[in-house]
């Protein structure tokens, strides 16, 4: 438990830096994990070179999904949209620094799934991309 609910995760859950909405966004996507009842929206603003200027998420979820979203968005500022397309499951797990059971993996990966759907400008989120 000390591992899974490390201070950093509780911290990002209770005081997320990237929670909220952008006034204007270039990429946006919203999805839910109906099994948990979690809902997540991600908005991105990019500069003329397609590099991320700002990123916000909104919605509700468990400590794992919210802290993963916050850590993920923190890590992508300044990166290009093409970089975001290369993000993988491992990147999220590295950010969280924990190991997860298959059920909780879904919580951790919701933000990546939503982010990928946003940058690929998909109509529906696709599990394969994560």
């Amino acid at each position, binding site marked *: 438990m000390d591992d899974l609910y490390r201070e950093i995760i509780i911290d990002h859950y209770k005081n997320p830096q990237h929670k909220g909405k952008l006034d204007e966004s270039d990429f946006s996507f919203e999805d839910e994990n109906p099994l948990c009842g979690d809902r997540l929206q991600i908005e991105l603003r990019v500069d003329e070179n397609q590099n991320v200027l700002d990123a916000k998420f909104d919605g509700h979820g468990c*400590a794992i999904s919210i802290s993963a979203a916050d850590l993920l968005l923190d890590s992508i500022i300044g990166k290009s949209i093409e970089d975001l397309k290369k993000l993988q499951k491992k990147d999220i797990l590295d950010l969280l620094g924990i190991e997860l059971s298959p059920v909780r993996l879904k919580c951790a990966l919701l933000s990546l799934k939503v982010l990928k759907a946003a940058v690929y400008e998909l109509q529906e989120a696709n599990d394969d991309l994560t």
Partner: protein
Amino acid sequence: MNISKIKEDFPILERKIHNGMRLVYLDSAATSQKPRSIVQAMDNFYNQNNANVHRGIHLLAEEATQKYELARSKIANFVGVRDSSQIIFTRNTTESINIIARTWGRKFLDEGDVILTTEMEHHSNIVPWFSLAEERNLSIKFIQITNEGKLDLKHYQSLLKLNPKVVAFTHMSNVLGTINPAKQIIESAHKIGAITIVDGAQSAPHFLVRIDDLDADFYAFSAHKMCGPTGIGVLFGKKDLLEKMPPFLGGGDMIRKVTFNGFSTNSIPYKFEAGTPAIAQAIGFGAAVDYLSSIGMENIFAHEQALVSYAMELLSDIPGLKIIGPSAEYRGGIISFVIDQIHPHDVAQILDEFGIAVRAGHHCAMPLHEKLHLAASTRASLYLYNSRDDIDELKKGLLRVCKVFE
């Protein structure tokens, strides 16, 4: 009731998990644990009597048939059904309700007919009706729940004015724990000529159910929630209804005669038991009702009611914790709750670290959670083998959960 003696009947409860923690199992509404005697009954069958049932002209086949049919009569007796030909073996409650929708429903329901169900149903008593409604253009209405989580019987009476053909409801909610007044609901439905379908998945395991006395038209329940094995459940139907219904699956055992021109169906219950049934599981189910009867359903219910009152009182002083559903006197051994600012998945995960098994999510009742404006909840569910110690552990665990998120 001697709980420590009962605990000894369940080998799994001796298991130590996560580096030596005692297992505190509070997830019996999902599936119950199994006493040694039911595993032995199934073992004995496989080791001594294994053969296919019906029609076999050899000793083992006769023994297998006799044991399988004995299980059927034991179960009929357990739920207060005098004629055991009305007890059909299915896979589980879900399959039982689907059979009603797909056979009785398809034959007897037509465009515009109304089905009543309730806001507190499990998906298994909603989705089969949505499927049928789409196919036949039926309309589904939901009997509302009151603020305290009981069925709104006034709203039920007003919906009966729509002349529904079916009233399908749960005897006990798997989330709120609410026990519904089945006899009264059935009586009102019969006054306007509706048939009644009762989801007994949570009731049959926990209190004495007398189906004949209730006068239910259909009643469904599963073995695995009542100390029995997975893979077997029951559909009770009144004889005249079952006889008028077309068969569900076609194949062996369900026929009387097959020619190159067609077939005629076997008598009930066999008409609805196509193919080789779950024989060992039926025998295990029979052993499970023997076990429950030896302790006494009245005793089990009284024990759970005492425990649920104790738990509700104990949990009520945890800061930010809110219990969903009615006061203890109206519920069985289920307590679902939410804690401010802490997601149920996190609650369940942290409790697991202390050896406490609860369930988190929507418990297959998404519409109910929508009604309650909740994304999910945490559920602790009790059975005969739970003791006050288990509730004390739950409280300790929940206080630790709160501390993690402090």
